[in-house]
């Protein structure tokens, strides 16, 4: 009965929360179509002449034509965008592949140190990424290097060019490696809870039917934990896509990701608000597409389940 009529204050609170959540995005969207003059000039409100100039500036390095308002394309958004995609997709993929196998092993196999391993994954998750920054920066720059006179190092140097030894710092691999390490504990943890729910008798049935351990895993367990994989994928992709701190230290000019690019676009003398808003909007698109894609797996996975009626 009490649910029939809500306190007006409840609705007011809802509206306030919605405004707080959607407001900034809306503001960003509107401002991305304004000229800097309009944004800073305080001609607030919705009365302005929309322009795609900001988007043209942001995408200048991959546009097929040369926009009139820029003489020199200084912003390499396209390149950064591709870097972000490479790093986020590959690190997500690797995290899932390693994560689901590790989770399966932790749930189903008995081996020495299993409980310790399980607990450690969760504890590692609690370590803030910033703690990793300094040691990883040092290791990537100085330790994990291949001698440029060495066989493999020399080959890489010859093929890709550059100076000095071949180090992980400044490469896609270096960043991907850190992201995989950073996201793996959570993915293992979330997938464990999904694998526990797969009835053991299914795996036993598959074994009696003639499946080896890998066939049991790939043909029976993996299809059943698809919703978990999708959830983990969304989570991992989002983190890898948004990550700023580690990428800012470990990337170089050619491997920087979009978040780095956006921040770098703010100089001491000139903050190009319009372009920042436009890049922000562009930055938001891939995770949305990825989430829509992956969440469909979650829904079909949920309806396909139901082992017992």
């Amino acid at each position, binding site marked *: 009965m009490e649910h029939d009529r809500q306190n007006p204050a409840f609705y007011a609170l809802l509206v306030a929360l919605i405004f707080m959540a959607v407001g900034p995005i809306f503001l960003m969207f509107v401002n991305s179509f304004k000229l800097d003059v309009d944004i800073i000039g305080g001609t607030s409100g919705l009365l302005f002449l929309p322009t795609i100039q900001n988007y043209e500036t942001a995408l200048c390095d991959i546009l097929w034509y040369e926009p009139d308002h820029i003489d020199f394309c200084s912003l390499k958004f396209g390149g950064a965008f591709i870097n972000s995609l490479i790093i986020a997709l590959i690190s997500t993929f690797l995290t899932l592949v390693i994560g689901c196998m590790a989770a399966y092993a932790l749930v189903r196999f008995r081996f020495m140190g299993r409980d310790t391993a399980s607990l450690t994954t969760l504890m590692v998750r609690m370590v803030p990424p910033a703690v990793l920054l300094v040691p990883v920066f040092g290791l990537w720059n100085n330790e994990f290097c291949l001698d440029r006179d060495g066989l493999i190092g020399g080959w890489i140097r010859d093929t890709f060019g550059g100076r000095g030894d071949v180090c992980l710092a400044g490469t896609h691999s270096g960043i991907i490696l850190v992201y995989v390490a950073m996201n793996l504990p959570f993915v293992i943890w979330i997938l464990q809870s999904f694998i526990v729910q797969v*009835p053991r*008798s*299914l795996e*036993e*049935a*598959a*074994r*009696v*039917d*003639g*499946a*080896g351990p890998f*066939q049991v895993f790939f*043909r*029976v367990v993996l*299809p*059943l934990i698809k919703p978990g994989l999708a959830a983990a994928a969304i989570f991992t992709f989002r983190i890898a896509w948004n990550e700023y701190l580690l990428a800012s230290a470990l990337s170089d000019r050619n491997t920087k990701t979009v978040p780095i690019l956006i921040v770098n676009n703010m100089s001491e003398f000139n903050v190009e608000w319009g372009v920042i808003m436009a890049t922000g909007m562009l930055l938001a698109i891939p995770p949305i597409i990825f989430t829509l894609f992956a969440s469909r797996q979650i829904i079909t996975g949920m309806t*396909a*389940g*139901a*082992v*017992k*009626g």
Partner: protein
Amino acid sequence: MFTFENVYKIMNLGSAVESMPKIRLDKLIKRYGAVQVLHGIDLEMDEDEFTVLVGPSGCGKSTTLRMIAGLESVSDGEIYINDKPVSHLEPKDRGLAMVFQDYALYPHMDVARNISFALRLQKRPKAEIDAKVREVAATVGLSEFLHRKPGALSGGQRQRVAMARALAKDSDIFLFDEPLSNLDAKLRGQMRAELGVMRQNVHKNMIYVTHDQIEAMTLADRIVVMHGGYIQQQGKPEELFKRPANKFVAGFLGSPPMNFLDAELKSDGDQLFAAGDGFKLAVPSELAATLGETAGAVTLGIRPSDLNYDPDAADDVALDLRVTVSEYIGAQSVLMCACGGASVTVELKSETPIALGETLRFAVRPEGIHLFDRKTEKAL
């Protein structure tokens, strides 16, 4: 120990004895840590025999089956299939099919893919797989449901899919782990009958685990009653029913269960009597002859079906029972009665209303008298 049989075993030539059992369990032992749950199971199953392992929960019957399947490791002893030791083999290399209690259907595959899973793993030609799936589905009456997911099937249909999946494998040995226990009573009866029919047509070794003695009695060629990790008795159903080896088997098989009364064996002239609180029954001479000099404290066992209402029966072949509870179940009434301090269940095929507290006289069929040693609980 050096014997010729061991030499044959080592050389993997099979034993010298003719007509070898299909499956043989040799002193099978299972331990979980310090707890031993199976204490040396010796069992032989002949070609094409339907063996039912039956017993209360925790008696080790499922563990035994899972060890044969290869899903549980063997702590000690050995399992032989066609006289080859298999306890070190993976389940897939033992050539058997299994039906699980919760069906264990793959929820992400439709019925056809569930049935064909084993065949697809064997990489059989597609045409052959399709033909086999259709054939097996027709056998169990699933032809219309081939493209449904298990989630969209009823309990009985899922049960059939599980059967079909086992049948499709063409194994020589079928294992059933309480396959009917998830069904409701009516469906269970129906599926039990269907299993019986399937049994007539499929001449394979089948091992069936259940806690339901009716399933055991109706389906089995050989019943193995287990309790506490030991085999209590094995043999043909009627053998176990008529001549239970001990009090446990006697009480476990049959419904309603056998009545047990404490009694003393007393000789009176030539006749041996089993006397207790409120009764004195003559022991039939054939039974008395086998007893020898073991007079003393015994447990008298009488099945409800061996007690017939007969007001004119003589004192030494009858029990006087005072009705305490009457359960009318249609064709007959089940009466709980008191005989002295003990409680006795009888069946009464009568429409006559029974007054509680009434004392009725029941004649005991002479072959219905079972005597057990009160200490060892072994049949005398």
